[in-house]
């Protein structure tokens, strides 16, 4: 049995989904925003699956999320719909409910956040509302896991009995007549196309082009519909879209008057206002934002993430030592021994030890997202982002980009216009992803021990500034045209659900470790092979005689103007395209230095200014394979993807060369 979970954004949908399915989720890899169709099976009932649909506000065909949801419900025909509604914001949430009811799919309404309603001395007459809406209603508090069992039972019962929602007559007068007339007219067509007639009729009256097309009406029938709509518009002296929206909201208002007692201002609202007195304050908002981001980075790199990484690092080193001596005692072939110890342990270990840093960063980012602060950030940043042709909403994917480019680019699906989406995808790789952190950490510690934080921050800032400049150029050339409307809900601040955050972290960890043992693992073996054998496939003791040296040597000329023409560095950068994490592991394997000695070794390869230009190049050059494949999927264009690669790499070379050359001149 399959249930679709539908509801507005900020209605607690993700929390409910996590409560229902626990860790039995598929495609749960992407943090931030619910973009993908996640599927999961019920915790104790593996025969029942739940499909988490994107958070939407109506079933119109305007955003890709609305279209995905509509197509899924109309074509896949789930056994039932669980519609989650934020009881503290019931009027606007029910707007979607009225349209879902028209789909004639067995449906249960989950009235979420009932604890807040009750705590504020509000109440909802559920029996009465159930009578008006004609569907079962279950009060729940998803975050506290209250009412979940009842909800599941009600959903199963409703679906098993195939109890379709009763027809709700939300309209009166001229609208009623128009919808009635259109329903009669299209009944047969709708049945043939498998579209519920009442849904089709109200959408046609509203002016929904895709439904009109799907019904394959005759010209005569289309004219008759337009005629009926015209009569309605003339009588009400308004237009079709406004009339229907007004009708639905009128109906909801009337119903709420009868069954909802709403507090004038809830505690949560007053609390949010108090927080916002500081966090969106005219003068203090930006410093507060910078403070929060600095705190996140400080906690990640100085307090929590890095020490944990060190711990893991020494653990791996210890294990590597044990394996090393065990293999020696056993007398294993020295080539295989080298593969295990110098190749796999050194390479994979170096990358694996950064898991704590990445998870800590994701932990804080998801706290900011789930608490509602990200919406404030979008609110504050809309004006400057509009100057480069984007909206405040693009800020969230960009911020996620500091964690990982892959989910950041996936998160651009929440953007309403193709143009905004493309520009944000283009801009995101400029936000330095967390996989590059090991490189920064290692180099800054080795070359700029006193100014480590300053150099780190300057890298991030340079990335952002160049991204802004680049998108400014894009705006003036490729992506002309108006940005999308910025009409965004600002939810009350809420305590994030520990379960949601930990599930997300678990997904991230799984995803990262998977990549380490697939892409990175493969990369280390390939690199180990290339650096251990020469062109005639003889095992070489000195990697300077190897195949890799020859390849690296050939391309290192390109890097001479940037200040490093050692084949090991160019090889490291090549492997970085597979995954940025590999840069360090490659350098470690090629120089034969362990993670702890690597910094010392690198000082013999770079002057400080060359080290800085190397960092700039790493910051800007082409995203990793995983990110490129995501860009390809989201842009849907090979040309665009190719452009991203060439642009990033070209810009990286130019900027790094400029910095190195200027720095050298100044240094003399």
């Amino acid at each position, binding site marked *: 049995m399959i249930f679709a979970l539908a509801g507005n954004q900020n209605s607690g949908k993700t929390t409910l989904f996590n409560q229902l399915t626990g860790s039995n989720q598929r495609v749960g890899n992407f943090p931030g925003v619910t973009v993908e169709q996640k599927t999961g099976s019920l915790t104790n009932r593996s025969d029942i699956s739940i499909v988490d649909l994107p958070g939407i506000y109506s079933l119109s065909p305007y955003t890709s999320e609305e279209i995905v949801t509509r197509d899924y419900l109309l074509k896949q025909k789930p056994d039932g719909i669980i519609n989650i509604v934020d009881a503290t914001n019931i009027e606007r949430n029910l707007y979607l409910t009225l349209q879902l009811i028209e789909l004639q799919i067995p449906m249960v309404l989950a009235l979420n956040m009932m604890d807040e309603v009750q705590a504020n001395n509000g109440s909802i007459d559920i029996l009465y509302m159930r009578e008006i809406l004609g569907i079962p209603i279950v009060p729940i508090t998803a975050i506290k896991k209250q009412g979940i069992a009842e909800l599941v039972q009600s959903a199963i019962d409703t679906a098993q009995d195939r109890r379709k929602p009763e027809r709700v007559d939300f309209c009166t007068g001229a609208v009623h007549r128009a919808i009635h007339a259109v329903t009669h007219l299209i009944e047969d067509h709708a049945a043939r196309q498998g579209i519920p007639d009442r849904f089709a009729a109200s959408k046609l009256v509203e002016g929904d082009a895709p439904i009109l097309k799907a019904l394959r009406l005759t010209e005569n029938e289309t004219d008759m519909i337009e005629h009926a709509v015209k009569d309605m518009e003339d009588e009400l002296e308004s237009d079709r879209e406004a009339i229907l929206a007004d009708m639905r909201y009128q109906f909801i208002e009337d119903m709420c008057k009868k069954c909802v007692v709403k507090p004038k201002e809830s505690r949560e609202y007053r609390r949010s206002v108090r927080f916002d007195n500081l966090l969106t304050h005219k003068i203090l908002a930006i410093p507060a934002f910078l403070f929060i981001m600095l705190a996140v980075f400080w906690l990640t790199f100085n307090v929590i993430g890095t020490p944990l990484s060190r711990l893991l690092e020494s653990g791996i080193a210890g294990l590597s030592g044990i394996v090393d001596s065990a293999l020696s005692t056993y007398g294993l072939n020295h080539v295989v021994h080298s593969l295990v110890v110098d190749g796999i342990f050194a390479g994979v270990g170096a990358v694996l030890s950064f898991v704590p840093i990445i998870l800590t960063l994701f932990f804080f980012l998801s706290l900011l997202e789930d608490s509602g602060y990200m919406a404030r950030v979008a*609110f504050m940043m809309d004006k400057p982002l509009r100057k480069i042709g984007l909206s*405040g909403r693009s800020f969230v994917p960009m911020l996620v980009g500091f964690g990982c480019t892959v989910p950041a680019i996936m998160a651009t699906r929440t953007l309403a216009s193709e143009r905004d989406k493309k520009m944000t995808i283009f801009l995101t790789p400029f936000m330095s992803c967390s996989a590059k952190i090991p490189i920064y950490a290692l180099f800054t510690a080795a070359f700029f021990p006193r100014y480590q934080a300053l150099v780190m921050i300057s890298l991030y800032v340079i990335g952002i500034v160049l991204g802004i400049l680049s998108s400014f150029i894009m705006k003036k050339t490729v992506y002309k045209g108006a940005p999308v409307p910025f009409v965004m809900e600002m*939810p009350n601040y809420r305590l994030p659900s520990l379960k949601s955050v930990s599930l997300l972290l678990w997904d991230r960890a799984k995803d990262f470790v998977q990549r380490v043992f697939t892409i990175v693992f493969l990369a280390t073996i390939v690199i180990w092979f290339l650096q251990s054998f020469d062109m005639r496939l003889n095992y070489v003791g000195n990697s300077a005689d190897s195949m890799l040296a020859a390849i690296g040597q050939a391309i290192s000329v390109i890097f001479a103007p940037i200040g490093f023409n050692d084949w090991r560095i160019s090889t490291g950068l090549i492997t970085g395209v597979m995954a940025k994490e590999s840069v360090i592991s490659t350098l470690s394997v090629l120089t034969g230095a362990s993670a702890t000695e690597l910094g010392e070794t690198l000082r013999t390869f770079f002057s400080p200014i060359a080290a800085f230009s190397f960092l700039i190049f790493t910051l800007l050059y082409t995203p990793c394979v995983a990110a490129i494949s995501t860009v390809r999927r989201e842009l849907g264009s090979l040309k665009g993807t190719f452009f991203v690669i060439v642009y990033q790499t070209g810009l990286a070379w130019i900027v790094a060369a400029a910095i190195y050359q200027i720095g050298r001149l100044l240094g003399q």
Partner: protein
Amino acid sequence: MTLKELKVGKSGRVLTIGGEKVLRHRLLEMGITPHTVITVKKIAPMGDPIELLLRGYVLTLRLEDAAKITIEEVPA
């Protein structure tokens, strides 16, 4: 007058909703329908967008879009 001209702390009743197709649709589905009472709560630190209270929830809107909504001022 338009919603853009409404001062912080003041309320207005919606008369008409303008704007292009996508914008207009979005305004309607978010509950900005004729007769809805909207209160302006705040202006973003950089002067735009604005924060509105309607139907018991908070919505943000750019000034240029708020200019497309005509209202009559009502006592809060």
